[in-house]
């Protein structure tokens, strides 16, 4: 029998765990190699921990969930967060910039029935995370790579460069240079295969920040496309709104002086 796999859900849309069921060609092969011990979206049969690998989807938004993730950590040998919610707090981290009581009053007739935390936070803010998979949603090929790597005990091959690399490799025409379309590709973590530019739109950063992004250069690029300061802030505040790097980038709304100005 293979290692045990558990899949857990916190505040999220279910899309990242669905990515596993969306591996139509590989699902039965994976199920033959691991013991699926806890995966409520797929099976009512639940085996008690400990588990070799836990995949965690979703962010922490309630006091109960903050407790639950600690119990899951205790039961898991390797804990992998899957997706932007688990890794950066998700789109629901937009509450972190607002007033959650006011938010509840807007959505619910009886906000007093709602019990929630003021912030949506990533799993790593609460427990040790062994590996993070980016994306909103994750890329299922990356998920298969992680599961395959864990099965044989090697390090998963997940690049941390920017979407620009993938875009060039794909032979796309740059949407910023050719069409003046705002794009977060230069500062966004690879993994999607440069999907948006391939469809002639700018990257909207759903994989979160790449390593060492150049904030001022990116701000200059965005301003040159006609974006206002408010537009830039909004652009970073979507599915990885809680990412510290994106928060920092969203505050840099002025580009570097261009070369001509510097030399004169």
């Amino acid at each position: 029998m293979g290692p045990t796999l558990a899949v857990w859900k916190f505040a999220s849309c279910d899309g990242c765990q669905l990515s596993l069921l969306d591996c139509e060609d590989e699902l039965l092969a994976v199920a033959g190699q691991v013991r699926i011990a806890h995966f409520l979206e797929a099976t009512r049969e639940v085996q008690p921990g400990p588990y070799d690998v836990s995949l965690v989807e979703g962010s922490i938004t309630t006091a109960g969930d903050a407790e639950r993730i600690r119990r899951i950590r205790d039961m898991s040998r390797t804990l992998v967060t899957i997706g932007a919610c688990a890794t950066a707090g998700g789109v629901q981290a937009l509450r972190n910039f607002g007033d959650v009581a006011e938010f509840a009053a807007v959505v619910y007739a009886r906000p007093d029935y709602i019990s929630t935390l003021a912030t949506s936070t990533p799993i790593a803010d609460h427990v040790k995370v062994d590996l993070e998979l980016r994306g909103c949603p994750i890329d299922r090929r990356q998920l298969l790579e992680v599961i395959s790597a864990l099965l044989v005990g090697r390090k998963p091959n997940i690049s941390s460069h920017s979407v620009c690399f993938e875009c060039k490799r794909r032979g796309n025409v740059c949407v910023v240079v050719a069409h003046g379309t705002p794009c977060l590709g230069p500062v966004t973590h690879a993994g999607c295969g440069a999907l948006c530019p391939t469809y002639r739109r700018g990257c909207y950063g759903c994989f979160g920040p790449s390593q060492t992004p150049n904030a001022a250069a990116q701000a200059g690029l965005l301003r040159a496309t006609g974006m206002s300061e408010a537009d830039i802030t909004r652009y970073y505040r979507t599915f990885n709104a809680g990412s510290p790097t994106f928060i920092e980038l969203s505050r840099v709304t002025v580009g570097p002086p261009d070369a001509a100005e510097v030399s004169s």
Partner: protein
Amino acid sequence: MTHRPDRTLDVRALARVEGEGAMHVRVRGDAVEDVRLEIYEPPRFFEAFLRGRRHTEPPDITARICGICPVAYQMSACRAIEDACGVAGPEPIEALRRLLYCGEWIESHVLHIYLLHAPDFLGYPSAIDLARDRADLVERGLSLKKAGNDILELLGGRAIHPVNVRVGGFYRAPTPAELAPLARTLRRALDQALATAEWVAGFEFPDFHHDHEMMALVEPGRYAIESGTPATTGGLAFPVSAFEEHVIEEHVAHSTALHARLAGRGRYLVGPAARYTLSRQWLSPLARQAADAVGLGAECRNPYRSILVRAVETVYAVEEALRIIEAYEPPPRPYVDVPPREGQGFGATEAPRGVLFHRYALDADGLVSSARIVPPTSQNQASIEDDLRRFVEGRLDLDDEQLTWQCEQAIRNYDPCISCSTHFLDLRVERL
């Protein structure tokens, strides 16, 4: 078998539903005192944080409400914003939207039929366990599901949270040559869909009927998917713009989803059975033939038999996707411009689980000033609870384990999407 006069039954963490929920049943003697679906999916406050976003953003943002039906959210959002801005998409773009939506119906329905629902009828805890005995069946299901995802990936860029949808249409329209291989996949999928309908028709369906009013979008001439007008089996019909006058949402203590009812009428049901009952005549001849062959009559009021409707709708969606691809001529531009203006707009489409309503108000700068989203599962919750109460009453002689499993199955009949109700199950039966 145990028979205790007073008991409570809890289904904690319902399996094979999308999202997080629980069920609580309280029994006193032979009477079921209370049945509650507890939706404990933590609230995410979409309607609050949509305020201040650009009018172009709600399709991508609201897609994140549900990973199983993101296209439904994108389409209802586009409809509502285009309505607010007074712009309508031209025909070739509308055809592509319907094609994308067919992909989502296929993917979502086949996920539910094979991976979530069929194991109940066949006595397996999951499709993976079913595959140990009948790999051929599960492989057929996965292959059919993949055909739906192939549409989503080609036209949308990816199956979950497609990137190619924008207010006004698409970022990029496919070429006919790109769609051609999809047609080959779909021709094979059509045979698989027909075989699926034949397969599920052989399941045993418990005798159970409800008399809820059912509501769906109706569009004379064709089976409503990405557009239509709300209508009910009780003869009520109203424009999408009057949705909030007719659908009243209430907040109940045990749920982070709101409960909806029809004003002056009460609980109601949306989803495949409602669509089928209201629009059977607009199915294609082949899909109608499939409906007859699986024994669906003029209406579907047995929630167990909703799996038959999903199978018939899958046949329809595959056929419809093929028809659109065969007639496809690329639009001159993949989108129309949608300049923002101050005002309010309404949009409703048929998500795989039923009517999905959006309303947005835009300010003079084109920013969202208010948003309202009414997903299918919150509309169904009161009817599901009513069905469960009658369901449990007829089965009080079962022991807790049996009753729990049967209640779980009954809930899965509705394919509740709890992440949508912005989610689901944990069954608690309290016998007092």
